[in-house]
């Protein structure tokens, strides 16, 4: 029994020590301080994490915390006023706008980077040079299940071999985005493909199967260039492969999308939030490339910055 009492008292001592330390931190003031709460999309997370990491050396006393509740989960907290910024891999939905309005939350949408989806085949695949969006739809739409099973059903000159499909799991934002862009309805696709939440599994799958076809985020392709072949997509005018240029100038469509950060009006009353968002816009280009995404053209960042400045002014 003595041991138990000892353990409990240890815990209490640890807790009370911790509190004293916290008070000390608040006492000595030099630069900006405070807490900035960010939550939302796990796709945008790496960018915000990189920005927060760099911001730490700029303003060491500002604590930036980032959650990964998903775009929807993030907006739920954002609309209750529980967070300062919300990461989002899609624009805010009407329902979420209504929830914000209900709680008197005004917000500003900031584009921070682009994300591209890559369509990939095995390097031994020597027959595919490009896909049209219609062909991708024909392969992936729900009606294709059990029907489109062979390569020569897509183009007659392609081999009479079974096609093996790989894609991210249905819970991921990448899957939602691909189905919306290709099939036309978010979350609607055939069910008979190899799905994995772990994109490394998809890389392995496609790399090990000559008759495979798959898609996932461009960043994963960048890490596995030697194992996979990237296929260009015909956007109706020309065949475009996703690269830094084609994604950021919008010619690689429809498989590229902007990523967003939302900031609310009450938060911009705090100088540390204003400082952080400005720092974010200034550095998003370089840092998003660092973590595998594609920066916006620099004039767009300038525009975001002007928008944000106006937003801060109007909410003073």
């Amino acid at each position, binding site marked *: 029994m003595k041991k138990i009492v000892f353990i*409990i008292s240890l*815990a209490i001592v*640890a807790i009370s020590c*911790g509190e004293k*330390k916290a008070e000390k931190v608040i006492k000595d003031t030099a630069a900006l301080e405070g807490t900035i709460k960010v939550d939302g999309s796990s796709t945008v997370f790496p960018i915000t*994490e990189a920005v927060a*990491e760099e911001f730490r050396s700029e303003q060491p006393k500002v604590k930036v915390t980032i959650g990964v*509740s998903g775009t929807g989960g993030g907006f739920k907290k954002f609309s209750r006023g529980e967070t300062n910024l919300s990461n989002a891999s899609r624009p805010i939905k009407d329902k979420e706008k209504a929830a914000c309005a209900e709680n008197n939350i005004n917000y500003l949408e900031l584009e921070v980077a682009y994300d591209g989806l890559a369509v990939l085949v095995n390097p031994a695949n020597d027959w595919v040079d490009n896909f049209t969006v219609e062909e991708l739809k024909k392969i992936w739409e729900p009606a294709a299940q059990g029907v489109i099973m062979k390569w020569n059903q897509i183009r007659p000159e392609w081999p009479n071999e079974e096609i093996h499909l790989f894609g991210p799991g249905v819970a991921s934002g990448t899957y939602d985005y691909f189905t919306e862009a290709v099939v036309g309805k978010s979350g609607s696709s055939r069910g008979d493909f190899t799905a994995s939440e772990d994109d490394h599994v998809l890389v392995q799958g496609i790399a090990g199967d000559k008759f495979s076809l798959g898609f996932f*985020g461009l960043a994963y392709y960048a890490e596995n260039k030697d194992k996979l072949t990237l296929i260009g997509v015909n956007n109706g005018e020309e065949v475009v492969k996703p690269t830094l240029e084609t994604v950021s100038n919008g010619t690689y469509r429809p498989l590229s999308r902007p990523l967003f950060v939302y900031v609310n009006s009450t938060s911009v009353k705090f100088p540390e939030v204003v400082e952080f968002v400005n720092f974010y816009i200034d550095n998003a280009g370089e840092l998003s490339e660092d973590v595998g995404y594609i920066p916006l053209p620099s004039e767009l960042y300038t525009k975001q910055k002007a928008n944000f400045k106006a937003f801060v002014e109007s909410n003073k």
Partner: protein
Amino acid sequence: MNSIQKNRLKDQLFKIWGIACTLFGLVLLVIFIGDILIDGIGRIDWGFITDLPSRKAEKSGIFTALMGSIWILLLTTAIAFPVGVAAGVYLEEYSKKNRLSAILEINISNLAGVPSIIYGLLGLEVFVRIMGLGASVLAGALTLSLLILPIIIVATREAIKAVPKSIRDASYALGASKWQTIWNQILPASGGGILTGVILALSRAVGETAPLIVVGALAYVPFAPSNPMDEFSVLPIQIFNWISRPQHGFIENAAAAIIILLLITFVMNGIAVYFRNKWQKRLK
């Protein structure tokens, strides 16, 4: 072949089958640990333990996640241990065999089978929102305490049941009251079993991810919690976060963090075994 030989053969076959079944889990565990060690062991150094998370895999460390896990562990122990043991003692020693106690018992067994994410939702509503604790270490620890309470209660009851009746009788015969008997005889005699149960329950808690994500544990926190109301991250969330990153360096980081997490659970299980053996000897 006569029937004796047939039966012997069956006996042998079943023995081989039994060995195969026993080895099945172990072999998988060895493969898993080997795989993780190959990927991650080279990544572990002092910096990995003391560094903050970073976008660069090589510069990234687990400091905040590790400290978060330790805080969660301590607070969960402080909450779940006294409550669980007291509930177990009540159910075993005081409650009368009536309908109420039957309902209680069924529900405690049911609780043990509730998926952990449901506890997360409960924690989010009750601790985070209604009690206003926010996404704090305390809210996380309370949620995990709920999660492991049924395990502790059941372990406590089993341990108390195993105390020889003679000890109890002797205590009463010497004129001890019920409370004196429980505090001075029953609990010390069943301590090994109770502690084993508690530690195993805690090693489950330290590996939980889902309920903590729901409660609002974070993926990036640049500071270790300094009091129970601070926000936090834990090792499993850090691992999950790294596994979903494209750069290969993060996979190594994840493997290295898994090694640390495994070490924590192995050490805890080791302590559990140690207590059990020590207490058993003392009883004899």
